[in-house]
């Protein structure tokens, strides 16, 4: 690993061997998932995809300032877990949290408005793309500094354990996050207290611009470390919503029954760059293309056709979603820009921000 890193030509990451996806597992067609649930997962993936494509267009029109991290190509993970959760369960996401927020049922309009920095945004414009939250939907926030939210998710699990509510906390994070200290503390802590927390590593093969294998001592950054926390290694095809859903149901049930935490590694890929500013040039030729062929929505579409769903039904869903994304965009654009009155509110629970008398 280190030797490889010292080879000058391999420091140009685009000249490394591409990391290609595994083939689609057609056997997953046979997973025991009701068709109406599958139709919901199709719809949700369409929502996440179309919402984020629109967000991207709005960046290009300079209506979204700052930065933004899309999960185009990674929708199956948010979908499989989002659908497997109970409404009162908790989700925790990173700055790459649009999909996880919508997957819990947060309304598109206020989420879009937040990206545009409007006061009808879901955070009133205060948080922006990297901090989406919707407490009423169990979406407990997006955390933009790597690591902390794994520890915070433990707290939500602990609270559920103390209150005896059988709620579960699910926390999403990237492959790169497995190398920060908080990951380690969180996993050990969750295990010794047998907390109802599911740790989900979305391994998209890159941290920002650096391939994860160059900076990680094991091949599977999460799964190969599970035993260090007394956990089973769990790897899942992160581009197959059914596979994710199936695993999610299992680990969430385990947590709900009081049998403790799990660590899941879902292998996937982001179609675009890390963030708005990144053209993704560090990826070897052929890699993006290969993963585009494994687009979770296209392959899911094909599965539904194989299962006998008429193409027209799927088209109607996509069209319906498109209309709702348009509405959300209008809602967001029509929102007022926050004003002076908003600046000093909501630091304290009393609604204000006074630090002196």
């Amino acid at each position, binding site marked *: 690993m280190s030797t490889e890193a010292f080879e000058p030509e391999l420091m140009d990451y685009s000249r490394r061997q591409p990391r290609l996806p595994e083939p689609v597992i057609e056997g997953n067609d046979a997973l025991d998932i009701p068709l109406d649930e599958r139709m919901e997962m199709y719809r949700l993936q369409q929502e996440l995809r179309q919402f984020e494509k629109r967000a991207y267009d709005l960046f290009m029109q300079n209506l979204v300032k700052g930065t933004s991290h899309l999960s185009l190509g990674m929708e199956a993970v948010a979908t499989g877990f989002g659908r497997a959760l109970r409404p009162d369960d908790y989700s925790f996401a990173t700055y790459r949290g649009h999909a996880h927020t919508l997957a819990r049922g947060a309304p598109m309009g206020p989420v879009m408005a937040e990206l545009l920095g409007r006061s009808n945004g879901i955070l009133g414009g205060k948080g922006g793309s990297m901090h989406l939250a919707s407490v009423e939907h169990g979406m407990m926030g997006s955390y933009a500094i790597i690591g902390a939210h794994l520890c915070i998710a433990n707290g939500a699990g602990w609270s559920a354990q103390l209150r005896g509510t059988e709620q579960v906390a699910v926390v999403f994070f990237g492959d790169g996050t497995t190398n920060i200290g908080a990951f380690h*503390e969180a996993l050990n802590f969750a295990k010794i207290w047998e907390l109802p927390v599911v740790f989900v590593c979305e391994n998209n093969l890159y941290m920002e611009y650096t391939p994860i294998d160059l900076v990680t001592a094991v091949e599977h950054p999460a799964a190969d470390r599970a035993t260090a926390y007394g956990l089973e290694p769990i790897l899942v095809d992160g581009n197959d919503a059914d596979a994710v859903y199936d695993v999610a149901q299992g680990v969430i049930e385990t947590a709900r029954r009081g049998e403790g935490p799990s660590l899941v590694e879902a292998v996937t890929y982001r179609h675009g760059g890390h963030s708005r500013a990144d053209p993704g040039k560090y990826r070897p030729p052929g890699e993006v293309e290969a993963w585009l062929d494994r687009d979770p929505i296209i392959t899911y579409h094909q599965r539904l056709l194989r299962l006998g769903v008429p193409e027209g039904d799927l088209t109607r869903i996509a069209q319906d979603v498109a209309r709702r994304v348009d509405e959300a965009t209008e809602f967001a654009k029509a929102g007022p820009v926050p004003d002076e009155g908003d600046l000093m509110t909501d630091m*304290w629970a009393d609604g204000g921000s006074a630090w002196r008398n």
Partner: protein
Amino acid sequence: MAELSYRDAVAYGIAQEMRRDPNLVMLGEDIAAAGGVFKTTVGLLDEFGPRRIRDTPISEQAILGAAMGAAMTGIPVIAEIMFSDFLAVCFDIVANEMAKSRYMTGGQMTVPVVVRTANGGGSRFGAQHSQSVENWCMMIPGLKVVAPSNSRDVVGLMAASIRDPDPVVFFEHKSLLATKGEVPEGEIVDELGKATVVREGTDCTIVALALMVPRALAAAERLAGEGISAEVIDLRTLVPLDTQTVLASVAKTNRLYTVEENPRLCGWGAEVASIVGDEAFWDLDGPLVRITTPHIPLPAAEALEDMAIPSVDRIHETITKTLD
């Protein structure tokens, strides 16, 4: 009215609140069976049981993360960080998460956490176990900061901190643990953001905090013998900051001294002096003087540590030299 050590007042104050709120829990390293390395949590495990009083691994980020996550979801938490120096290993959760989550989410999150921690020097523990780090927290928007100087205030401010719906960092001073003080019977609940004038005076105002309060009082006593009447204010909480009490005092005495244990640069003394230098400028009859630990890491040797931290002698001498 009972006499309690500052150390015992900590557990006493926590117990008062745990009896009131059955949801309140506490976690930290060696706090349960051992009663804390400073013996500030003795008896709590026996009374409240292992579900509410829990030992943790050496994982400060996990400790404060668990506290924050539980607090966000309806369980108020007291978390112990053994020495305040160790706030550095979990500073992301303190400064970037707890403090900001409510504002960032447009008011969606409420984080009723009290982070208790042993602060300050005088124990000859050296540079990594002796710091006064109130300013590490005061400078972070979204944190409340409390630092009692006596047993009674430990109880009253602990209650106020626990009942406060926002994150509070509660500094227990290591060199005050053995001091004793009267604690009235019955429930004691203070308000955050109220300083106390612990000695009235007319010639100058000395603003102090925690261990510096008894030292400021002793210096004032000595000054009184020399005909100088110093007013001494115990700030008690840094955020919220009771600027009115300070400004009113300076309006009367026309001189300000701050006595801080933190190292020189960017301490609360600078903040207080700057506020006075802005808002009470026309009241002032002379320079704004800060008495602080020098801007050095704290040395371990007894002789050196005693030179570093403001002493009664140094306070007294500085004031006599600069007050005319």
